[in-house]
């Protein structure tokens, strides 16, 4: 029965990496799980050229799976190009978590990634200059 709550999951939950908020973040995104009402907030500071993730933090309340997954995701995301995270498939997130989850708990594990992707999408929509918009 320890399968789901392996040492590395509990470790990320008890000692979350990248926990907190970023003042004047480039991207701030909030996600809510319709399943349980858990909320998560992801803040991102971008590199000067706005192409890679310079810093990322998460906050909010949730179950061990959602919190540990967010911790693993953001630890992994530091220094990575935005495009890589935008294209990150859900399976890659589940591989990062590394334990077998039931269908309902998969939603918990993906909450952080979805919130981050939502934030990037909205940031792109807001920062894209009309001149570059394809018509």
């Amino acid at each position, binding site marked *: *029965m*320890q*399968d*789901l*709550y392996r040492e590395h999951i*509990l470790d990320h939950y008890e000692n979350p990496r990248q926990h907190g908020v970023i003042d004047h973040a480039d991207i701030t995104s909030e996600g809510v799980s319709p*399943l*349980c*009402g*858990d*909320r998560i907030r992801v803040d991102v500071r971008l590199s000067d050229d706005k192409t890679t993730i310079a810093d990322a933090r998460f906050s909010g*309340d*949730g*179950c*061990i*799976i959602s919190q540990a997954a967010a911790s693993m995701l953001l630890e992994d995301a530091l220094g990575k190009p935005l495009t890589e995270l935008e294209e990150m498939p859900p399976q890659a997130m589940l591989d990062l978590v590394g334990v077998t989850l*039931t269908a309902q*708990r998969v939603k*918990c594990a993906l909450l952080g990634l979805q919130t981050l992707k939502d934030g990037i999408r909205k940031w792109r929509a807001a920062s894209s200059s009309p001149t570059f918009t394809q018509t």
Partner: protein
Amino acid sequence: MRTPFPTDAIRADFPILDEVVNGQRVTFLDSAASSQKPLSVLRAMDDVYTRAYANVHRGVYAFSETATARYDDARARVARFLGAPSPDSIVFTRNATESLNLLAYSYARHFLQPGDEIVITEFEHHANFVPWLVAAKERGIVLKFAPFDAEGRLDMQAFQKLTGPRTRLISFAQVSNVFGTITDPAPIVARARELGAKVIVDGCQSAPHMPIDVRAMDCDFFVCSGHKMLGPTGIGVLYGKLELLEAMPPFMTGGDMIREVGFGGATWADPPVKFEAGTPAFVQAIGLGAAVDYLSALGMPAVRAHERELVAYALERLSEINGLTIIGPRDPEIRGGVATFTLDRIHPHDLASLLDQQGIAIRAGHHCAQPLHTRLGINATARASFYVYSETQEIDRLAEGIERAKRVLRR
């Protein structure tokens, strides 16, 4: 001494309870979400499909006549079970959610004026919340929420103050699906009569678990869901006073619910058929008929007494666990068979997953009552709920399972 509740004999009627989940015989503690079904219900439906299946109200041949007679008979059984004066006052719907939406459309939108008020409570299930929210927005109706006290009981003083001359409709859960609180309809109905308002009782968590007499209750409408009371999915009930059902326009239109259709218009059948457009879920209704027979044979006072004992035992057993907080009333006299709780530093989802790994099924989350959880200032709770087949040993397994989960999570 009253005779002991025949739990062993009952469990033999529910073969699913012998299933093995994650290496353990299942401990099913989520009946408030949906109950298991006895063989008699499954056989009643099987019997229609294998021996007398044809569409109802249509054919003049034997299969159709038999199916129609059984459908009508199921309606009569449900009417008797709820104490309704006539089978005509029982409308079959898909579930209680559809029953409440029917009322929001055919009653509230039709009879309420802008500025009129609907009063519900802060502990309602989304099914008795969202339809009113939407109707209120659309029609300029004012929606008010009666608060609950620290023990999860309706604050009757606040309710009295909240209701007034513009109150046209009051809708509330007789038993809260989170707190388990049993709310006495009598003072609410009395207040409604003073004001000339109508009362809807959401009986989803009461009809399966305690004696119901809608005539004695004198409510205007009563709704419940078949799948929570040993019946199949896809069948729900709306009871309404016949004069109200007669005055209300149809909810959905189409076949079966008409009297006459011409190129320029149509006239409606009498209730309840007026509210049952299209081929109804008559096999499921027949299953529900068998379900209420099963419950009636046990006796609803005995069912309630059994669950009162279980919930009393659960509250006592769970309170012994360090860091566990019971949500809702501590008094089993005003609490249905629902034990809701939180655990210090353990999220209900993590607890539910760890219990599942031990073959124990409980519910974790907001139980479709987000406004209630917002008021409590928490996102989620854990809930174990009981029914006719539940036994104290299962509560012991739950308590042991929680202790084991705490050890795994080092809490």
